[in-house]
């Protein structure tokens, strides 16, 4: 049973981590709360469905194509709708909500509300010390590790990574240092959407697709990011695994209350925030005058 919980927790945690990191990144750099983050994840999922089921391409090509397409699409949306009003935080928030709604409606109209699914990349399962684990779930875990490694490399070792970290740290001074802050914001947006699309690609075979699928992961993603501290990737990672394990605990120890995992996870988030208002690793914001 303990092993079940550990395995289940690791997998849920990895899924949340994939989504949370992208969300956290764009917030840290551009102070944009991208409500449409999981909506892009959904669009990527539908692209893969379309490619794999309707056009018959191999899932891997569909995934790559979906990531590229959705990233480009995300950048276009950003340029058209969000960039012009970046100074007004409240308006940006609403714009992303409206964007998410629009994407939902488009998916609803094109694909209707029926539940759809996508074939797994690697079918089958294996026994891990008596616990049945899908290969696809293993892939999720591996993907998180790989993506984190790639992101770390990007942020620590490349010039663009340094620029991103600078802008996240202090926007105005970065501008003074000659970094084109709005270009960095756009690139970060691209990375963030790409991560959402990747998350879609990897998680989608495990889930069922429907146009409302973006709401539930959004709440959990926001909980994870707040818990870990906005703008902190380390925090998001930790927060994701904490909430993942909490969910697993709830499902195994209180099977009758499995539906409560949402509420329990959020309660934990509130508790942590009571003690530490900036989240676990968050930077407490100076009043940005």
């Amino acid at each position, binding site marked *: 049973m303990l092993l079940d919980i550990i395995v289940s927790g690791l997998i849920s945690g990895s899924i949340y981590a994939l989504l949370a990191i992208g969300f956290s990144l764009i917030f840290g750099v551009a102070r944009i709360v991208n409500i449409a983050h999981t909506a892009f994840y959904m669009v990527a999922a539908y692209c893969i469905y379309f490619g794999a089921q309707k056009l018959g391409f191999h899932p891997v090509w569909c995934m790559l194509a979906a990531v590229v397409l959705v990233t480009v699409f995300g950048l276009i949306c950003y340029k058209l709708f969000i960039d012009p009003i970046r100074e007004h935080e409240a308006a940006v928030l609403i714009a992303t909500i409206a964007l998410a709604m629009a994407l939902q409606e488009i998916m609803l109209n094109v694909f209707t509300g029926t539940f759809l699914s996508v074939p797994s990349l690697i079918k089958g399962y294996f026994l891990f010390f008596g616990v049945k684990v899908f290969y696809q779930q293993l892939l999720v875990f591996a993907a998180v590790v790989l993506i984190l490694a790639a992101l770390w490399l990007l942020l620590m070792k490349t010039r663009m990574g340094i620029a991103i970290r600078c802008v996240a740290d202090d926007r105005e001074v970065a501008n003074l240092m000659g970094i084109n802050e709005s270009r960095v914001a756009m690139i970060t947006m691209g990375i963030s959407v790409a991560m959402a699309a990747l998350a879609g690609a990897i998680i989608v075979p495990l889930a069922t697709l429907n146009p409302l699928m973006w709401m539930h992961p959004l709440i959990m993603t926001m909980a994870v990011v707040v818990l870990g501290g906005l703008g902190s990737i380390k925090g998001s990672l930790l927060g994701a695994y904490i909430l993942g394990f909490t969910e697993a605990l709830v499902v195994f120890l209180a099977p009758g209350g499995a539906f409560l995992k949402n509420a329990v996870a959020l*309660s934990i988030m*509130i508790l942590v925030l009571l003690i530490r208002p900036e989240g676990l690793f968050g930077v407490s914001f100076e009043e940005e005058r």
Partner: protein
Amino acid sequence: MGALAYYVRKLYTIFKGEVLVLPSRVAVLLFFLGILLLPVISQDPYLLRILILTSIFAIFAASWDLLSGFTGQMNFGHALFFGVGAYTAAFLSLHAHIPPWGSIPLGACAAVLAGLVVGIPCLRLRGTYLALTTLAFPVILMGIVFALPDLTGGELGISGLHRLSGSRLSDYYICATLMLGLCSVMWKITDSNTGIILHAIREDEVAVRSAGINTTRYKLIAFCLSGFFAGVAGGLYAHFMRIAGPSTLEVSMSFAVVIWSVFGGMVTIYGPVGGVFFLFPLLEFLRFWPEYRTLLFAGIILFILLYMPDGLFPWIRDKIEIECPRCKVRNIATRNTCRICTAPLKLGMTGEGG
């Protein structure tokens, strides 16, 4: 007789001097008159239904603005107050057989308590943390609602409530006058001492604290007031729809109120009211194209935000009024000089007849 004529003339002078002077005030006057006199033109029950729901949501949106606009505490879980107000009013109505004019205020009081429950943990949080935390509260309450289906009716909610009043028309007048009344009260609150302090808290809390004001108390007051008005809206909704279900606690309800308010213009009470009156009937109107309704709605919001990021009504107001640079009084935009201090309003003007 002479005294009466005197007062009438005085009223008229005040009216001409204060209200007719500014187009925004005239607009508000017309709005009041329009809402109250609409049934004279048309008593179509569908139209009245739409306007009743709009009024209820207008109270809801204005209460959000009081909290998140004026006090700066971005509340993404405003549906909590709405839902608590609705469910409490439903309980009292069904089990204690209290008529609507009793159950709704009591429901609102329960919402005030909810305001405290939310406000206290959120005292130390700022900005986005606050927003996302407040998002959690209605979700948790919804979990509790589903966990206790015998008490709360689970997904079906509580149904079979008393009507608000005997007929659609009296429902309309109740909701409309409540809306006008409560929104005016909220407007007055923002204009009072408390309101100024709340506004100051939004701008710079540290400065307010260093001025010796207990910001904790004022923030909690803001949460409670906001909760009260939202609870009233919730109670009205429950009695009008005759059912109080978990749909009142949904994330989409929280998001909807944020959309209406920001669209209409934050940090003004009339902004959210106007926003609701514009967007809600628009959504109904778009039933012409049922498949693309929500899409068009989202599209309209996106495009308007591009051009009017501060909100629709502040934008309109800025177009038709100018603020005098010297005495800071608002004037109609067609004037050349300020009506109070005769300073030139536009560059290049040098006084009367320039």
